[in-house]
């Protein structure tokens, strides 16, 4: 079957292309979590390191502390901005509320990781209220709160956490009865005067937007969350030296202002980081920073996206089609295989991606494996169904005229199953293109990256920068598969067009 060979050759070419694009040199990889401040700090560190002549790879928007930490340990990333409180409580689990650098570095030494001196701001929990209100009441610190008649509403998590409101109320003897409120709605409620006080993160850009001020935690109740560069010890010493320049370069207000520029003024990270570095004298104005244009970014993301889905679907075919061919004669085995593949499909994509991290680390590999698992079901199901449903009379005749089982498969069964198998591959591809947008959470890049960033910044234009090309890719893929089907399959064999 020549047509089959053509399809195989085309797919192998795609795979080779994909692999060659995936291979790169060894730049400094800077990561971030998927919230605004982490992006800003990553971009600042990236430009600073670039200004020293290093090539930098940005792996931003990683889905949480555990993912970032595992990525750092495994060398998938070289540095990201972490917080001292998170390091002591989540990573080292010492429970220290105000850990010193020495304590942290002692704990991290076995992993060959360390933290550099703090950037100077403390992004901790804060009690916040309108600046005008604070002024009129003369409020500056939490200890002034008891006995005051305020409407307090705090986020559900803060309301229930032992180290949230209950502990705070006990420490300061607060007698207000707070209600729970969605964090995003709290700012609006405070803005409209429905509540007076809520909890916040002290460097949240929204504080700036709504003209809020924070009360000083004068009894030192909240854990300290000083931002620190969290690095691998094997970073080049010039890079470490560069990152040390950031020590004390911020305070709460200046970080809040940088965050606000992104979330309130809709400035992009690159410009905000550039302005900060130039204004604080860390980078000379003469150093030009490469600002990739929108189209260049779309092209890079789309290429990455294609590599992810292309490899996943190819591997899905390479496993699914032969497996289907092997198990279809045995109904029990077919059911079992389809059941397992179906089970895979029911695992939520994010959960599956998260499950991949301890096994395969971060980046393209776990993403491709997860996507492959998703591609398997439609490919397997269509292969098995197509082969099973071929007229048994034709199966019998093909043997009776003297074909052996391999020839029967090659000349009769597979060509007759081809339209169905192709439509399985088409479904798998479209699913993979959609699901691959989640791959950004494990640092695999692709069109999910602008979507994830856009979601965390509530920036619709960023979301669309990922979503539109992804939708177009799906449409184009569908179109190309229809063309491929037309060229490989005689018209009367196409599904839905079988002759009477």
């Amino acid at each position, binding site marked *: 079957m020549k047509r089959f060979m053509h399809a195989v050759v085309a797919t192998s070419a795609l795979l080779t292309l994909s692999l060659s694009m995936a291979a790169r040199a060894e730049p400094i990889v800077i990561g971030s979590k998927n919230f605004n401040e982490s992006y800003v700090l990553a971009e600042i560190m990236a430009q600073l390191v670039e200004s020293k002549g290093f090539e930098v790879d940005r792996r931003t928007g990683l889905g949480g502390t555990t993912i970032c930490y595992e990525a750092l340990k495994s060398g998938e990333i070289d540095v990201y901005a972490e917080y001292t409180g998170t390091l002591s409580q989540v990573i080292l689990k010492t429970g220290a509320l105000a850990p010193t650098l020495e304590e942290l570095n002692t704990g991290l030494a076995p992993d060959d990781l360390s933290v550099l001196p703090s950037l100077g701001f403390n992004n901790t929990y804060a009690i916040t209220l309108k600046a005008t209100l604070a002024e009129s009441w003369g409020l500056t610190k939490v200890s002034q709160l008891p006995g005051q008649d305020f409407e307090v509403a705090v986020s559900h998590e803060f309301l229930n956490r032992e180290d949230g409101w209950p502990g705070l109320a006990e420490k300061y003897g607060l007698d207000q009865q707070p209600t729970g409120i969605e964090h995003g709605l709290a700012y609006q409620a405070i803005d409209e005067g429905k509540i007076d006080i809520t909890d916040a993160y002290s460097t949240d850009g929204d504080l700036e937007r709504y003209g809020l001020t924070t009360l000083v935690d004068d009894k030192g109740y909240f854990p300290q969350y000083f931002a620190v560069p969290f690095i691998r010890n094997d970073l080049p010493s010039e890079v470490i030296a560069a990152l040390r320049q950031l020590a004390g370069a911020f305070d709460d207000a200046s970080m809040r202002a940088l965050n606000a520029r992104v979330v309130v003024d809709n400035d992009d990270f690159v410009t905000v980081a550039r302005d900060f570095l130039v204004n604080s004298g860390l980078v000379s104005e003469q150093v030009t920073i490469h600002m990739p244009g929108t189209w260049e970014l779309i092209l890079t993301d789309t290429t990455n996206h294609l590599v992810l889905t292309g490899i996943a679907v190819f591997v899905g075919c390479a496993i699914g089609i032969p497996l289907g061919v092997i198990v279809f004669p045995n109904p029990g085995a077919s059911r079992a295989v389809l059941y397992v593949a179906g089970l895979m499909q029911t695992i939520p994509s994010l959960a599956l991606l998260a499950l991949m991290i301890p096994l395969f680390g971060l980046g393209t590999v776990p993403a491709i494996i997860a996507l492959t698992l998703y591609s398997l079901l439609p490919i397997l199901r269509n292969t098995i169904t197509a082969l099973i449903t071929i007229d048994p*009379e*034709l199966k*019998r*005749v*093909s*043997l*009776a*005229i*003297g*074909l*052996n089982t391999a*020839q029967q498969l090659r*000349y*009769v069964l597979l*060509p*007759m199953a*081809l339209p169905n198998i192709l439509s399985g591959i088409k479904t798998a591809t479209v699913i993979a293109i959609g699901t691959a947008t989640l791959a950004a959470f494990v640092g695999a890049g692709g069109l999910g990256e602008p979507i994830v960033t856009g979601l965390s910044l509530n920036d619709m234009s960023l979301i669309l920068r990922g979503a539109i090309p992804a939708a177009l890719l799906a449409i184009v893929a569908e179109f190309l598969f229809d063309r491929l089907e037309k060229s490989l*399959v*005689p018209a*009367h*064999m196409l599904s839905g067009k079988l*002759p009477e």
Partner: protein
Amino acid sequence: METSTSESCIQFSGVTKSWGETEVLHGIDLALPSETVTALVGESGSGKSTLLQIANGLLRPDRGAVSVFGSPIDYHNLPELRRRMGFAVQGGGLFPHMTVFDNISLVARLEGWSEAKLSERVEELFALFSLQGELADRYPHELSGGQQQRVSLSRSIMLAPALLLLDEPFSALDPITRASIHEDFNALRSATNSTVLVTHDMAEAVRLADYLVVLREGRVMQEGDVGSVRSAPTDEYVSHLFEVLA
């Protein structure tokens, strides 16, 4: 024993076959003569198709032995044996994704025939079955039922097999087409040595066959030359089959 083997194309000895609990063939002993058209006649459920599929190894008997061309069937080398036995079924059994030419020539091409030899042989068969040349590039669904059946017969004798097995090949056709294909079939008789035709139609059996085997509920009721069976039915069932004809 030796003599009977050399004169028979297929020999069944004590062949028994069951589907689940139901035994459909009860110890069939039968030697089908060579260079003869033999009709296996019976109603549905008589076991005639099962017997035919046992002859080319599509089914294996539960007990008993089958010899083809004088040797027991080698179940490890069925494709080679089957290429010496043509096969056609009711409805044609043509592969819908292949053109008429490819359907007919598939196995010969796998046998390594040259394109020229393939074309030559297909042309010959087209002439034999009065098929127009332009049908060669069509797909089966573009053909009438009669044309499909002629193509199917062409495929069955492409390799000029010594033995031809036909499983109700004419049953799905309308009476006029059937009559016309019956004529073609008589042309085909010279092209192959032995033919076994399974049919439920006694009229067809009488018209096409020389030798008759009447099956009923998994047993052989009577066998012999068409004339002798007709003139001396040993059983009421068999004579009834002929009465319907008259």
